[in-house]
């Protein structure tokens, strides 16, 4: 059993009157090891956000089981412990702010956990430094840019000392600079603090940063592997309305025309290097 474990999870939302229940997750089994950085990739409606919300017991499976650090999420008495371990960051930065001063917003979580004041101060400072927002600690939270707000949301969760961060399309509402800031922060937390990261996204240039990419479609797992392994499957991804990087597509199409080129090219540098080898002939 892995740190985050979903076993044969099936889930349907409560249907409207007269409608049949719609199955959003169908027999999903997925295990995520401690310290892994996993990207959950899929188009809207694939079930990726629904699955993510099972990992902090926000949703419970209609059938099957979900375990966090060995704890069954359907056990009401363990909910608190589970949510202490797994923090959830959502898409809209504004919806996650609760206080008008940055450090008060970050303190909200630990305060609710009953952490002693001196300890709260330490945790808030550490969390803000971890997301590179320490100098903004006395600023008005609502005046920050989108990327900054998302980093505060992340800090607010880190201050509760979780083992795992689940981020549901955290950069969807951000501009390029905000996206870079948030992704950089998440990568650093994974590498330097060993935090387990589950990043839900439909951007393949974000999925590329993960150790492992799990692709979902229509409530099922389509494919699972390293970024290179997954993005080599260009046909499959396109058939399921997903993007591949232009670099990957270019090499793929040249290969299809008979060019001896490697699989799994992910970025410009690799693409240029691979093409140069042929053009130099």
């Amino acid at each position, binding site marked *: 059993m892995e740190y985050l474990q979903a076993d044969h999870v099936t889930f349907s939302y409560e249907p409207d009157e007269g409608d049949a229940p719609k199955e959003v997750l169908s027999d999903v089994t997925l295990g995520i090891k401690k310290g892994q950085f996993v990207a959950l990739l899929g*188009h*809207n409606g694939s079930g990726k956000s629904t699955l993510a919300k099972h990992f902090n017991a926000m949703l419970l499976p209609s059938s099957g089981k979900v375990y966090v650090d060995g704890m069954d999420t359907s056990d009401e008495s363990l909910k608190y412990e589970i949510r202490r371990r797994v923090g959830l960051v959502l*898409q809209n930065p504004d919806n996650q702010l609760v206080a008008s001063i940055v450090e008060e917003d970050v303190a909200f979580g630990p305060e609710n956990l009953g952490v002693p004041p001196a300890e709260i101060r330490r945790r808030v400072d550490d969390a803000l430094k971890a997301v590179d927002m320490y100098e903004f600690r006395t600023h008005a939270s609502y005046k920050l*840019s989108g990327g900054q707000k998302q980093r505060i949301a992340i800090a607010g969760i880190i201050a509760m000392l979780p083992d795992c961060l689940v981020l549901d399309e955290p950069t*969807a*509402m951000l*501009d*390029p*600079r*905000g996206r870079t800031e948030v992704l950089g922060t998440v990568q650093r937390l994974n590498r330097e603090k060993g935090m387990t990261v589950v990043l839900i996204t*439909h951007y393949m240039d974000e999925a590329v940063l993960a150790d492992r990419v799990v692709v979902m479609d229509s409530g099922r797992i389509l494919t699972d592997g390293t970024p290179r392994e997954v993005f080599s499957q260009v046909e499959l991804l396109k058939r399921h*309305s*997903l*993007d591949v*990087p*232009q*670099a990957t*597509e*270019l090499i793929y*199409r*040249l290969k299809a*025309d*008979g*060019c*001896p080129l490697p699989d799994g090219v992910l*970025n*410009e540098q690799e*693409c*240029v290097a691979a*093409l*140069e080898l*042929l*053009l130099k*002939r």
Partner: protein
Amino acid sequence: MSEIILETRDLTYLYGKDTPFQKTAVDGVSVSIRRGEFLGVIGHTGSGKSTLIQQFNGLLRPASGQVLLDGKDIWDEPRKIRAVRFRVGMVFQYPEHQLFEETVRQDISFGPRNMELSEEEIAKRVASAAEFTGLKPELLDKSPFELSGGEKRRAAIAGVIAMDPDVLILDEPTAGLDPQGRDQLLDQIVSYHRRRHNTVILVSHSMEDIARVADRALVMNSGKAVMLDRIDRVFSRRAELESMGLRVPQITKIMSLLREKGYPVNAGVLTVDQALDDLIPLLRKRGCIR
């Protein structure tokens, strides 16, 4: 009819004028937008692009300089500025936030009704706008809040298209959409532009989106208009764009890097198809293609 539909002359806009926080958001911008073109507007956050487009339909009033629609200053008769907004339609980012009516049909009708059109004309406009944005007819009588995210967005865009503006401005219309949603919406905007023959201005952070749909690109940097040219020419100036904190589409960068290394490829390539057109002959010569 003149070739230029919308023009700014030495346009300047200040936020927080005469306060310690005064910021020149738009700095002496003079640009001419051609009738019927599809113009992309790019620039880093804070470059002034959103402030600039809000001058085009009089939402913001210049501190100095002029905005001309069909050769006439839009502020000549300030009381009639509302009429400008029927001719220059603006779709803001996350337009679904502006849906408010009881049914989708009523929401789309809001603009035309404010234009005091006949009920018959309004009905025609609603049907046409729904068709342009790919909204299924059965959705028209539902509450906007029952719609999916993508459908809501289309309903909001339909509400602006229903006013049949001569210039349609869209600010990040694909923000928050997944790849499929983005593709569908961009295709619909392109198709609308082709059928309606009006002028479309698209503000976006996605270079790939702009490369795909626009004829020309306007590049804003720190309040100034620094480039206004055909997109292939704009994107071939990779080093300059990168120095402004912007990037070019990934495929453009790849071809630009190859060109810098001395290979005879086009640095202004915008799509994978165009790149293949350039590369296949070269690779064939080296015996790499079947």
